[in-house]
């Protein structure tokens, strides 16, 4: 057991027990840490599209203006990172994923989100529908900064935040679950923070 470093506190955080609404093993932070597995893409909105693909072909696609013309809402959510920080009451401006997925007829059971820079993450379809997921383009009333996933990212607050893929450019509709980037390297396929599903096998 490491000795306690006298007088070291680290960044301000509140133990989960006191916070009450925080999953096991997490601490609350006031910061918004930036975690990246690669260089930050910078995609101009003029070049941006969001596509729903199936079997190698594009079923439906929106450019930036088309996406921004869709009904949007302000979403307030607690977010939980697998690296143990949680941020409460984050505010996003976003289009519900239902709005996008409702425009494609399909019977896929899983999706694989794909992103600029090559990042991917997998989710059951049920977890990106039913009002549980969004395409977020704004944070705290401002355009989503590139370092936090702008121009747009997936927002799926009920799962660990690695599922809220930054720089998202679309979803592949799949019949079978297929592990994405972190899932391939050993993170949990589903990622429920309330059951502390951090690593494969948890």
């Amino acid at each position, binding site marked *: 057991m*490491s*000795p*306690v*470093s*006298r*007088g*070291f*506190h*680290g*960044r301000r*955080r509140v*133990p989960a027990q006191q916070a009450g609404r925080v999953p096991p093993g997490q*601490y609350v932070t006031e910061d918004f840490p930036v975690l990246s597995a690669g260089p930050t893409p910078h995609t101009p909105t003029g070049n941006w599209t969001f596509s729903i693909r199936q079997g190698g072909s594009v079923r439906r696609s929106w450019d930036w203006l088309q996406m921004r013309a869709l009904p949007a809402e302000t979403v307030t959510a607690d977010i939980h990172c697998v690296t143990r920080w949680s941020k409460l009451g984050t505010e996003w401006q976003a289009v519900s994923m239902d709005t996008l997925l409702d425009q494609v007829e399909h019977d896929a059971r899983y999706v694989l989100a794909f992103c600029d820079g090559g990042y991917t993450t997998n989710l059951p379809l049920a977890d990106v529908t039913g009002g549980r997921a969004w395409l977020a383009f704004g944070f705290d009333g401002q355009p989503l900064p590139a370092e936090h996933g702008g121009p747009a990212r997936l927002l799926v607050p009920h799962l660990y935040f690695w599922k809220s893929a930054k720089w998202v450019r679309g979803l592949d509709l799949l019949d079978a679950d297929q592990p994405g980037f972190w899932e391939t390297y050993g993170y949990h396929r589903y990622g429920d923070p309330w059951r502390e599903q951090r690593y494969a096998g948890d």
Partner: protein
Amino acid sequence: MAGTALRGRLTWQNAKVAAVIRQTARAVTIVLDVPGWPGQRAGQHLDVRLTAEDGYRAERSYSIASAPGEPVAITVERLDDGEVSPYLTDELRAGDTLEVRGPIGGYFVWDPGKDRGPLLLVAGGSGIVPLRSILRHRERTGSTAPARLLYSSRSLAEVIYRDELDNDGAGVTVVYTLTRSQPPGWTGHAGRVDAALLAEVAWPVDGEPLAFVCGPTSFVETAAQDLVELGYQPGRVKTERFGATGGR
């Protein structure tokens, strides 16, 4: 000796802080007493791990400021919004325990017995720390390798080890460039390290110089690229990046 320092288990150890020496307003040198320390090579670093009362942990790497044969010491520069550096520069005291792991590194090291050629050392901010270890090692071993140090700092007040560098012995040339503010009457360089300044300070390539470049990532990448464009062999430009603001 060097072989045994590299191989074998690298484990966390409880070091005693022997002294905390202020270097500049934002930087301190922390001298450590590490049980069983095998000795450091010039340019190596060590990892520090802090544990809060609730078990929260933070880990960082710091370059070793002292030369082989000297007590192991690190120099830490405070990053205002850092999580670890303010603790080390403002709170840590002699007598405290610090968990460390090291020495680490086999690439960014200078060994006068094996490495030949004139030495070019290029430092951006706290990147000076491992280069100072190299300069001290050079002096302590009586090496005749000619050495030039180009040290970029925001201001003269932020230059670490200034007295030591200004009094450096024969065979070492130190050139400062101050990027944000210069003292009245300053006749030295001002502004960032660029290809022109490197062309002026760097050893000519026909002497087969060996370069060590250390500092924030963007500083290192620009300087290393400029050196290669001057004709330095890529394999003889060693780089160590500290991240955007030179430390955490």
